């Protein structure tokens, strides 16, 4: 095989793209970790984003709040230590959480507020653990926010000595990544079928139940954006990472289980049949999607896994935009992407890191894909120009992991096609005036 032609090429653009601020991770993490409180230390800009992005959830007495920085905080007229202590006291009194997460933002970075230094002092005074995560827009995009939080959380896991057994080897498995409880249960169930010794998950439903680690702990991620968490567990806690594709789509799920089983020297019986069965049940969707082209503008780091699955479904992936790729952490996923492309006899799609939305729109106009996966800032304008779009953020907030959720992914992807078929027949295709068409042409 001519490797220079078929190896994966990465491009990098300007990084001028639309994505959610990583502090958005508090919206799902505070619900996942039930005894937590998230304090976002930032400005009105951060607060405004959270309030609007999270919509109605804000009204359900959320376990998160802003520590809104005022001019006196910026110019150091107020003492950070006193201010944070006061707010954390207040939180402790009214909510009594088991753990307080401080989410650092762009502003705390720029004014160099020493959150990591202040946290242990205030933690000792209020007698409540304080975990610092710097989930800011200077460094990270959207789902990477969860990565910074889980990396900080992983630091709090205890490493306990291994119980010496016969061979002196007693490996166990910790899975990391925040998933809805029923999804993590389902993945756990898939693994227990093959008698994999699962020690626990990071995060757990309660902070108090955070699992212990041993020097024999193997770890495996369930989401592609968790490279810092993986690194922390490896370097700081001595865990060994199982490199696996992510359990998204039946192909990914099988690859994930196989990789874990291999690490434990277990042969997963019946797994291939299981995958086949799932593919069979997806047949109606596959018929609809086969041969259709898809374009990922890129904003949540799930893009490689989704593109790999959809390629296997018979779709033609035109471009995979993605904020950031850790090639080591995603190695198995990238390998599976390549295998899938070879298997389906399609070229490896163009992968664009730090994309430029403006240039992408030009490429959209040239390639006219059947479906564009994009953020909410661009979805309506693209629809008005006759392009079918699906909001990328829905993939983050839907259940997409494991065998049985493969259907949900295809339900999402195919929705614009099913939805717009009638409208196109009615002639309601392009709904912008000529004048705007010129703008498109210019673009």
């Amino acid at each position: 095989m001519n490797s220079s032609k078929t190896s994966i090429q990465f491009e990098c653009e300007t990084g001028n793209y639309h994505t959610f601020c990583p502090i958005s991770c508090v919206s799902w993490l505070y619900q996942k970790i039930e005894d937590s409180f998230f304090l976002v230390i930032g400005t009105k800009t951060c607060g405004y984003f959270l309030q609007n992005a999270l919509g109605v959830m804000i009204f359900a007495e959320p376990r998160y709040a802003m520590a809104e920085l005022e001019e006196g905080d910026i110019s150091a007229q107020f003492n950070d230590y006193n201010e944070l202590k006061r707010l954390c006291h207040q939180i402790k009194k009214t909510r009594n959480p088991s753990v307080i997460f401080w989410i650092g933002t762009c502003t705390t970075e720029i004014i160099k507020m020493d959150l990591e230094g202040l946290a242990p002092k205030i933690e000792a005074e209020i007698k409540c653990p304080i975990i610092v995560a710097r989930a800011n827009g200077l460094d990270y995009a959207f789902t990477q926010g969860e990565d910074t939080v889980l990396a900080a959380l992983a630091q709090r896991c205890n490493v306990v000595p291994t119980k010496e057994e016969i061979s002196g080897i007693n490996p166990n498995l910790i899975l990391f990544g925040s998933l809805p409880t029923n999804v993590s249960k389902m993945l756990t169930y898939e693994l227990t079928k093959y008698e994999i010794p699962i020690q626990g998950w990071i995060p757990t439903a309660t902070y108090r139940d955070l699992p212990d680690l041993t020097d024999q702990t193997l770890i495996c991620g369930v989401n592609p954006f968790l490279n810092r968490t993986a690194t922390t567990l490896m370097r700081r806690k001595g865990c060994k990472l199982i490199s696996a594709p992510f359990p998204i789509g039946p192909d990914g799920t099988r690859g994930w289980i196989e990789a874990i089983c291999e690490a434990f020297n277990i042969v997963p019986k019946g797994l291939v049949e299981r995958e086949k069965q799932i593919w069979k049940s997806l047949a109606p969707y596959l018929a609809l999607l086969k041969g259709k082209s898809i374009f990922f503008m890129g904003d949540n780091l799930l893009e490689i896994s989704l593109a790999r699955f959809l390629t296997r479904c018979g779709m033609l992936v035109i471009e995979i935009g993605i904020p950031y790729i850790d090639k080591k952490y995603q190695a198995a996923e990238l390998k599976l992407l390549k295998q899938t492309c070879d298997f389906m006899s399609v070229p490896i799609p163009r992968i664009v890191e730090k994309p430029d939305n403006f240039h992408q729109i030009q490429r959209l106009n040239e390639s006219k894909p059947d479906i564009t996966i994009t953020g909410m800032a661009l979805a309506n304008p693209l629809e008005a120009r006759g392009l079918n779009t699906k909001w990328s953020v829905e993939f983050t907030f839907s259940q997409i992991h494991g065998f049985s959720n493969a259907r949900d992914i295809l339900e999402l992807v195919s929705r614009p096609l099913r939805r717009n078929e009638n409208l196109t027949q009615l002639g309601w295709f392009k709904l912008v005036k000529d004048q705007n068409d010129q703008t498109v042409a210019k673009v």
Partner: protein
Amino acid sequence: MKLAYWMYMGPAHIGTLRIVSSFKNMHALMHAPLGDDYFNVMNSMLERERDFTPVTTSVVNRHVLAQGSQDRVLNNIRRKDREENPDLIVVTPTCTSSILQEDLKNFIERASISTSSNVLLADVNHYRINEFQAVDKTLQQIVEYFCNSETIIDVQKTEQPSINLIGFVALGFHSTHDYQELQRLLKALNIQINVILPEKCTVEQLKTLPKAWFNIVPYREVGLMTAKYLEKNWGMPYVSTIPLGLVETGKWVKNIESVLNDSPFCKEKVNFTSFVQKQTFFISQAAWFSRSIDCQNLTGKRAVVFGDATHASTITKVLAREMGIFVACAGTYCIHDNLWFTEQIQGFCDEIIITNDHAQICEMIERIDPTAIFGTQMERHVGKRLNIPCGVISSPVHIQNFSLGYRPFLGYEGTNQIADIVYNSFTLGMEDHLLEIFGGHDTKMTLTSQSNTGISWDSESQEELNHIPGFVRKKVQTNTERYAKALGLNIITLETFYSAKEDLEAQRS
């Protein structure tokens, strides 16, 4: 530091972006980190905007922190100039750039040498002003930039009376419907509209602003600075009455009349008295509604009002003056405009609250326990929790308040819309009476004569209870049993039953 869960007003840059994106062929370049372009999502989702929002970010990242962003900002300005060729690029500072304190002004001067677009730095400091103040300031800044004595040499007033309509801006509360309504009204008054500002306004139009005889600023939050600038530099008077509600809309028309008649360009005096009367009495249904027996039942009902200065003040007046409703408390989150607000609603309400802390509003509503709330999206949720109906009368609002149907708040059609909102928010007349008589809403549970409270009913009281209409019977039963329990009674007699009813009524009054 302040512990905050919710805010009524956004940060300053949102105000600037709302103005810039309202104009035609202008572009805003934010100096901000990744993810701060959330405005584009709001514009695209809430307004269901078909076009790409003309806002991009010059991204601030680690490199910028290390070495400054000058080349980046310069290149991004040049790039936008080349790609979109806008008439104006407004460089927009955010909270981040406010702290970085880079010399953005200098970058702009350097950039504008090599661009065909005009380039301007929005003069908005994140830590000093809020969204609304930034809206007002940026509009004035852009008007001043294109409409000063150097850019415009000769001003010919229009032949016919004409005005500029100032203050219609992206993400404004029912703003698009309001300007259609005012356009209609002004047409009926034979007044030409010279320029609508800033919605869909071009730079060419900006240069013709002084052609109008005078300016109209219907919202308190947007355009007053612009109107004052045009008055000072171009001698243009302005009308800033808010045409919301019948009385105020009438005043607005009469103010227009007197400004017209005072104008040196006026050839023929006008009199709009009969127009106002006809609109009030017969075209709008609101005056008739006030007189009708439906509205009579609203007399003295307790309401609270909260919102921006424009809507909260005028709705308070409508409720108190035009519908006879008792406004127990009215307030605004426009703290910066509290003197004006207080003066406006003096005498129309019992209590005034000026705050941007939603918890305080929540406490106020719980304390007053009104029959209806008129507020923002936030108060709507408070109402849901407390089981009090709420009419939404002001931003911040969610997507359901960007209605596709025609729903102005201003002008004569606006008075109809408001009457509907008010009336539908209160419990309807007959239903209300029945609830009053029988002490509460129906619950779906069927009556069990022997409930699990351990309290029994004697045959007489049981019979009386059976006379109560089914849909409120359970409620009456519960109330009576609660009353009996409080008195330590085990058996409910006819006497207990009646005294329970009296006691309940005493509590209500």
